[in-house]
C-alpha cells in the first residue's frame, strides 16, 4: 500500500465520544477513579535540559503517582537534548514499539505529524502539547494542549503597546528590537510573525528594527544583540524575545541603565524571568502553563483510555496564557 492511500484511510481509527463543553483553562482536570482492566501505559515525550521543561517535569511528577495508584503506568521519555522533528519523531516511534497505549508528544514542527499518523495508525492514542496545532489533528491526535502561538505573539504585541505607552506615541514613534532563537523554527516564527502583525495593528508607532535577529540558543548573543539594539537605536522602547532567556535581555537593558525607557517582553515564568520581573527589568512574560501541559495532557489521556471520552469537543484545548508583570507577579509566584 502506498502512503497516499494510508493517509486517506486515517482519522477513522480512533473513535472517542466528545463531552459537551471544553474544560476551563487553569483548573486542573479531574482524573477518573476507574482502574484499568488490563495493564496500561502512557508516555510523555519531552526533553529535560532547560528551565521550561523542568516545569513541565513537575506536572508529570505530580500526576504520575496518581495514575500509578490506579494501576496505570506513566513514563517520561527524553527525546534528546534538542527539540527537533528527528529527535521527537524517533521517540514516538520508540514509544510505539515499546507498546505504549497513549503518547503525549511535543510538537517541534509540521514534520512531526507523519510520526503521529504512524502511531495513531497502530491504534495508539496520541495527544499533542506545546507547539503547533494545525496538522496533528488530521493525523489523528485526540487533542492539542498548548499555546496558540500566533495568538500569544499577538498578545505580546498588545502587551508591548501597553508597556510603551509612556515612552512612545503617535508623535514620538519608538522602535522595538526583536530577538528570536531561530528564524527557521516554526513555533518561534509564529510568535515572531504574530507579534509583528499585531504591533502594526495595535500601535503602529512602535515598529520593529528590521526583521529581528537570531541568537541560536546562545545567551551571549541575546546579550550582545540587546546591547547592539541599545546603542544603534536611540529611540528604542522595547525588546521582544521569542524563545528562551528573555531574562538575559532584561538584565542587559538594566545594566545599561535603560530599564525605564526600554521594555523587555518574553515568554515563560521561569525562576530567572520571575526574578527579573520582580526587579523591574523584565516588563512581562507570557506563561503557557508548563505544569498543565504535562499534568492535564496525561490526565486527559488516561481518562480517554479508560472512559473513551475526549477532554473537549474541540481539538484545541488552549493552556491558560497567564501574563506575568510587576503588578501580579507576587501573587502569581506564590500561587505556584
Amino acid at each position, binding site marked *: 500500500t502506498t502512503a497516499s492511500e494510508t493517509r486517506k484511510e486515517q482519522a477513522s481509527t480512533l473513535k472517542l465520544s466528545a463531552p459537551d463543553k471544553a474544560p476551563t483553562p487553569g483548573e486542573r482536570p479531574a482524573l477518573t477513579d476507574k482502574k484499568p482492566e488490563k495493564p496500561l501505559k502512557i508516555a510523555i515525550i519531552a526533553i529535560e535540559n532547560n528551565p521550561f521543561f523542568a516545569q513541565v517535569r513537575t506536572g508529570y511528577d505530580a500526576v504520575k503517582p496518581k495514575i500509578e495508584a490506579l494501576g496505570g503506568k506513566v513514563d517520561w521519555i527524553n527525546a534528546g537534548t534538542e527539540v527537533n522533528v528527528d529527535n521527537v519523531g524517533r521517540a514516538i516511534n520508540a514509544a510505539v514499539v515499546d507498546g505504549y497505549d497513549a503518547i503525549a508528544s511535543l510538537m517541534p514542527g509540521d514534520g512531526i505529524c507523519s510520526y503521529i499518523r*504512524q502511531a495513531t495508525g497502530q491504534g495508539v492514542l496520541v495527544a499533542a502539547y506545546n507547539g503547533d496545532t494545525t496538522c496533528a489533528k488530521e493525523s489523528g491526535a485526540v487533542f492539542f494542549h498548548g499555546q496558540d502561538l500566533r495568538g500569544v505573539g499577538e498578545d505580546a504585541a498588545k502587551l508591548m503597546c501597553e508597556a510603551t505607552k509612556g515612552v512612545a506615541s503617535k508623535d514620538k514613534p519608538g522602535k522595538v528590537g526583536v530577538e528570536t532563537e531561530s528564524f527557521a523554527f516554526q513555533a518561534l516564527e509564529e510568535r515572531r510573525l504574530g507579534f509583528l502583525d499585531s504591533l502594526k495593528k495595535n500601535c503602529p508607532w512602535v515598529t520593529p528594527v528590521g526583521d529581528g535577529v537570531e541568537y541560536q540558543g546562545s545567551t551571549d548573543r541575546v546579550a550582545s544583540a540587546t546591547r547592539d539594539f541599545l546603542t544603534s537605536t536611540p529611540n528604542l522602547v522595547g525588546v521582544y524575545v521569542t524563545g528562551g532567556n528573555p531574562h538575559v535581555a532584561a538584565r542587559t537593558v538594566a545594566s545599561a541603565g535603560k530599564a525605564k525607557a526600554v521594555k523587555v517582553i518574553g515568554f515563560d515564568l521561569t525562576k530567572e524571568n520571575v526574578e527579573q520581573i520582580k526587579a523591574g527589568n523584565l516588563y512581562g512574560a507570557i506563561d503557557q502553563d508548563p505544569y498543565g501541559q504535562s499534568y492535564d495532557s496525561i490526565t486527559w489521556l488516561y481518562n480517554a483510555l479508560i472512559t473513551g471520552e475526549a477532554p473537549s469537543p474541540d481539538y484545541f484545548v488552549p493552556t491558560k496564557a497567564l501574563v506575568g508583570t510587576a503588578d501580579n507577579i507576587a501573587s502569581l509566584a506564590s500561587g505556584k
Partner: protein
Amino acid sequence: MTQRWSLRSAFGHVEVALVLVIVIVAAVVAVQVPSFLSTANLINLLLAMVTIGIVALGQGFVIMAGELDLSVAATIAFTAACAAALMRDGVPVWFAVIAAIAIGSLIGLVNAAIVLGTGVNSFIVTLGTLSVVQGLTLMVTGGLPIATPLALSDIGADTRVAGIPFPVIVFVVLAIIAQLVLVFTVFGRRVLAVGDNAEAARLAGLPVIGTKLAVFAIAGGLAGVAGILRAASLGTAESSAGTADLLPVIAAVVVGGASLVGGRGSMIGVFLGAVLLGMVQNAYIILKLSSWLQLATFGAVVVAAGVFDQARQGRIGWINTLRDRRALSRSSNAAAVSAGTSK
C-alpha cells in the same frame, strides 16, 4: 608476530570491527529491553538514520578525497524547500525531485569551484556556504514549513516494500552502489588517490580538479536526495533542519573508519557508522536514559568506536611495545636456556 597477523586478518576490516561493536551494543541493550531487537524497532532505527546516512555517503566521498563539506547540512533543508516550493507552484512531482537533486549538486559544484579556484581550505569555504545556504532556505521559505503534495509521500517512510520503508531501501541501495563505485571503478580509485596525495595524483595525470568537482557534486546531490526523502516522509519541507545534522554526518563517516585527511575509507563503513549512531540514539530512548546519560553514552560510544578501530589496526603503539616485549622475554628465556646448554 603470527598471532598478531591472525588477529589482524580476523578483524581485518573496519567493517568487521564495526559490526562487532554494533552486535555488542545491541546485545547489551536487548538484555534490558528485548523489544529492542523487534523488526519494528530495527526498522525505526534504520529509518531514523536515513537522512544522516545518505548525506554521510556523500560526505564520505568528499572526506576520502581529502576535503570536507560542512554545507551539506544546510543543503538538505534547502533542496527540500526548493522542491516543495516548486510543487506548490504546480511543477510535477518527478520534476521537482530531479530539481532538488540538481540544486544540491549545483551547490556542491559552487563549493568545489571556490575551493579549487582560490585554494581556500574547504572547511572555511563550506563553513561560509553553510551559512549562505541557510540564508537562501529562509529566503525561499520565509522560515515556515512548506507542505508537500500527497503524491510525494509515495517515496516517503509510509510506503513500504516487503515491509521495509522506501527511504531505507534507497539508503541501503545507495550505500551498496557507493561502495561498489569506491572499490571497483576508476572514479573511486581516483577519489582515494587524490585524497591520499593530490600531488602524486596530478603527476600521474589523474584529473584532480574533475574528481574534486565530482565529489562535491555527489555530496550535494545526495543531500538533495536526503532532503527530498525527508520531505516525502514528513509531508512537509522544514526550513530548520539545519546544523543539527552537521556533526552526526561527519561522525558517521569517521566512525565508519574513513581517515579525516583523506585517502582511506569504506562506504560500508559509513553505512555501519550511521547505523551505530542511530542505534545508540534509539537505545537510549528505549532504555529511558536521562538526558545526561544520553549525551555521555553517545560520546563514549563515539570514542570507543575510534579506539576499537585503532586497536584493530594494531596502531596503539604502547600496546604493541608491551606485547613485543613480553613475546621477546619469553623467547629469550628459551634462548638463554639453549645458549646456556651450548656454552
